[in-house]
């Protein structure tokens, strides 16, 4: 009775969807869950909840750890399932659940939720179960700051008893919105922006513009990808584009101060080519307004026209500390902050308020299409 082998899975935004859309989202979520759970785990869908049944208690922790990284899941709780015919019968089951968990010295609260038709309300259930525990164990009730909180979720003639709630990432099921191309630089921001796009139901196709010989952050990118892989139900694809030769050509022909802008416009062109190959619908970047020279509003404006795809910038309104905090939470911070060589081509005084016409004029002196095609011809696709 006291072995928690049934995991309650709660989802958030999916509950706002209706009809066929909701079914599609739930199915996608279940498919993500199946991908990370052991084959023998059973999954059942009920209205507003999904339940995972595992055979043995020691599989529960592993399942909780995996499910807490599935996009779309708000929280999970390992629970003990019981069936009942009356509220006194339920309170007996709740007492058995409470006995090894609550001692006489503890203060406790019962948190009850209810779905279905019953001749009692949630608060009635909490009161009756609480009274039973006070009477049998002798613990004291403290509803505002209890030492122990026991929860009961009543669904028709079943009840799920639990004490732990493990947070999930929330958001939408992985891939439900389609594919996006995520630019990964090796810094702190781009893995965070990619993760946020994944959290909104996007399947990422990663693109890293390899700066060699002007810099080399491939090891940081690969380490970040390995961390992000833990958040995905399937392997991740990444394209490594040799960008150094392109940079060399730009610097040989264009004013140095425009390099960062022209560099980014080339990256968008690579991303668009890869998006077309992979059927991706948008480009995701880690830009945040004003964070560095290439991210002033004026310079972001100058990125216009380099691609016809929408550019999604999940970090646009965040400051560095907020971005770093997310990186730490999702696990990419360590990979992004290990030693790496920064770009040796960056001008000392990059343009912070470029003029789009000037940038376009400079591009006319370059064989932009040829540069992009050459880089794409030498691009490698890796799977993590």
């Amino acid at each position: 009775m006291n072995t928690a082998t049934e995991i309650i899975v709660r989802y958030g935004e999916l509950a706002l969807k209706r009809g066929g859309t909701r079914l599609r989202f739930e199915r996608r979520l279940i498919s993500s869950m199946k991908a990370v759970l052991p084959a023998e785990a059973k999954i059942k869908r009920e209205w507003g909840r999904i339940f995972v049944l595992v055979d043995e208690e020691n599989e529960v922790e592993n399942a909780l750890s995996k499910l807490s990284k599935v996009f779309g899941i708000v929280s999970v709780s390992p629970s003990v399932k019981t069936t009942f015919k009356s509220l006194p019968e339920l309170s007996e089951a709740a007492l058995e659940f409470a006995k090894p968990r609550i001692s006489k010295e503890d203060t406790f609260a019962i948190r009850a939720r209810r779905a279905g038709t019953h001749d009692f309300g949630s608060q009635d259930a909490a009161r009756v179960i609480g009274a039973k525990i006070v009477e049998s164990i002798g613990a004291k009730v403290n509803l505002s700051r209890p030492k122990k909180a026991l929860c009961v979720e009543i669904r028709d003639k079943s009840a799920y008893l639990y004490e732990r709630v493990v947070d999930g990432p929330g958001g939408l099921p992985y891939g439900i919105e389609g594919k996006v191309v995520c630019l990964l630089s090796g810094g702190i921001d781009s893995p965070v922006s990619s993760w946020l796009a994944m959290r909104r139901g996007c399947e990422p196709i990663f693109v890293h513009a390899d700066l060699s010989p002007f810099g080399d952050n491939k090891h940081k990118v690969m380490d970040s990808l390995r961390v992000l892989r833990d958040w995905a139900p399937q392997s991740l694809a990444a394209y490594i584009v040799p960008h150094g030769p392109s940079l060399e050509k730009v610097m040989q022909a264009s004013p140095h101060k425009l390099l960062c802008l022209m560099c980014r416009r080339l990256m968008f062109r690579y991303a668009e080519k890869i998006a077309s190959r992979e059927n991706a619908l948008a480009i995701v970047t880690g830009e945040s307004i004003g964070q560095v020279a290439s991210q002033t509003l004026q310079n972001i404006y100058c990125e216009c026209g380099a691609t016809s795809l929408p550019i999604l910038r999940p970090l646009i309104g965040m400051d560095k500390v907020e971005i770093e905090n997310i990186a730490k939470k999702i696990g990419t911070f360590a990979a992004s902050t290990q030693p790496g060589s920064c770009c040796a081509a960056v001008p000392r005084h990059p343009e912070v308020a470029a003029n789009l016409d000037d940038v376009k004029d400079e591009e006319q002196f370059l064989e932009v299409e040829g540069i992009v095609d050459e880089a794409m011809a030498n691009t490698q696709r890796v799977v993590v």
Partner: protein
Amino acid sequence: MVRMKLCESKASFEATPEKPAKLELMKLKENIVSENFAELLASTPYVLVLKMRGMQVSVYPSGRLLIKADERLATVIAEEVYGFLGIL
């Protein structure tokens, strides 16, 4: 005298000459190639990237160098480059 400091990336050392230089990198590139001083990885008017003793070295017009090596080897390389440039 070469001044060395660890670069922000923690993967390279930055060397600066005592007095800033004004190097014509495209001309310097020709000398490097003709005298077989180092392997040239990239050449632009703003930065040259060389390979010396198996390490990558970026040379800037001011004489600043970025050397991807440990401090001891970076110092040796910096002295060699400044010796070649005649600005030691």
